[in-house]
């Protein structure tokens, strides 16, 4: 689908709610170098959301949606959890899957899109919580990676089941006591980034969402690599401020504290050799394009 097809009928334009008019007028569909810096300058692909005030997940959503390289041709697959409350307000095609089934749905979807639109780039991005990715859906997650399915999996890791009151999840840190897990976690946080690497993911990153420029970079890399080579995985720390006893203003600091080199969300990145080559190729092309633009500007001046 190109941006030209996202057009409101002229005779009914005036009755369309303003959020749809804004999407057509000033959203960044079709913009090649879209990124987090568009936030504030253009219509975001997320309308108001129903997450808690100050929830880092809402920041993550905004950065990811601003960074998808091809939103008009992207389908996102969600699962049960806090993220599923946001998807109705997202202006990117999306599917809500059965809890844990997201990577299986995405596998079929990606294959079907390749058959239905052979000449067109269609991206599939899974976005689910840690319960869906690591506990209930671990089978589907791993099997998709083993099969080298070409899509990106993003896990919003808040280290517990947040919207059901705080039950223990596989990604919860050892010893943590949650409201619905009073004994405390008895075993270590599942090392999914390492498992992802060993399962065939070509690009794996673990980080927090405290830095929008970093999120933009890793989302773009993940989508581009999954488009050309194979599965990619991003594990983003989006703490549930309610469940860890923080105030709404403290989410950002919590992420900053947790990403220090000795902490559990220290930046972690694995890139396969073919993915490294692709990223180098893309960087060279980008450099060429920038040089050409600079030259053109100089000539114009």
């Amino acid at each position, binding site marked *: 689908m190109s941006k030209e*097809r*996202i*057009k*409101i*009928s*002229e*005779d*009914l334009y005036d*009755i*369309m*709610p303003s959020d*749809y008019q804004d999407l057509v007028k000033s959203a960044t569909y079709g913009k090649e170098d879209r990124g987090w810096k568009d936030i504030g300058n253009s219509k975001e692909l997320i309308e*108001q*959301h*129903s997450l808690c005030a100050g929830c880092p997940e809402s920041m993550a959503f905004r950065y990811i949606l601003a960074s998808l390289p091809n939103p008009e041709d992207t389908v996102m697959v969600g699962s049960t959890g806090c993220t599923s*409350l946001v*998807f*109705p*307000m997202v202006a990117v095609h999306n599917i809500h899957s059965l809890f844990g089934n997201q990577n299986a749905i995405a596998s079929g979807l990606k294959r079907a899109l390749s058959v239905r639109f052979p000449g067109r780039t269609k991206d599939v991005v899974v976005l689910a919580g840690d319960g869906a990715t690591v506990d209930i859906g671990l089978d589907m997650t791993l099997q998709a990676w083993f099969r080298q399915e070409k899509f990106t999996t993003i896990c919003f890791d808040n280290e517990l089941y947040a919207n059901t009151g705080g039950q223990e999840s596989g990604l919860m840190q050892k010893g943590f006591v949650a409201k619905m897990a009073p004994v405390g976690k008895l075993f270590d946080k599942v090392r999914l980034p390492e498992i992802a690497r060993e399962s065939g993911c070509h690009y794996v990153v673990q980080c927090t969402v405290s830095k929008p420029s970093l999120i933009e970079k890793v989302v773009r890399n993940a989508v581009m690599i999954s488009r050309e080579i194979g599965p990619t995985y991003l594990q983003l720390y989006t703490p549930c401020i309610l469940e860890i006893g923080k105030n709404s203003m403290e989410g950002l600091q919590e992420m900053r504290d947790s990403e220090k080199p000795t902490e559990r969300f220290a930046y972690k990145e694995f890139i396969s050799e073919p993915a490294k080559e692709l990223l180098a190729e893309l960087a060279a092309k980008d450099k060429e394009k920038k040089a050409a633009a600079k030259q053109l500007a100089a000539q114009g001046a």
Partner: protein
Amino acid sequence: MGIYLPNPGEAHINGVIVPEEKAYEEAAKQFLMAKVPTLFPGPLVLWDWNEKAAKKATAIRHLYNTLKECVQPGQTPMLIPMPDYRPKYPKINPEVEINPNHPNLTIWHNKIDCCMFIGVHCHQANLSLKIIRGGTSCYTIAMCAQAGHEDAMLSFRDASVEKIMKLAEWVRKLKGTVQPRLTSAKSGASN
């Protein structure tokens, strides 16, 4: 058993199959009787995704303008879009849109007592029509581009630009001949 959908050239009124001409007359009457006759255009006509959609949008605007010209003082025709089908959280604004997952909110808020769906995908129209029928006393009309809707009180099938224009003609034809329900205590939509 149950309601049969009309064959081409036919429509149904309260489940009874009638010639299409009869349905135009009844739909026009219902619009002219209503205090708040409303058109609900859906995504198939709100978005200019092909030439036909744009032409239907023009025809809908014509029907709305005709309604405005033909009603009497105290009647307030409305044109409210159904831009998409996703449930809206925390809430929709019922003044400016209708959503198939809770269409009753828009009906109640605007006191709509007669409405017509057009350009809404059939499965979403069915959902909306059921909720409206179950939760309000609004008269429902479907201008369906496929085989019609058993859940509407009156349903056309094979909607086209010509059919929308013809309905507008009928509204004009019956102008001044129908008594609006302005004073009836039971006239408005209710829950």
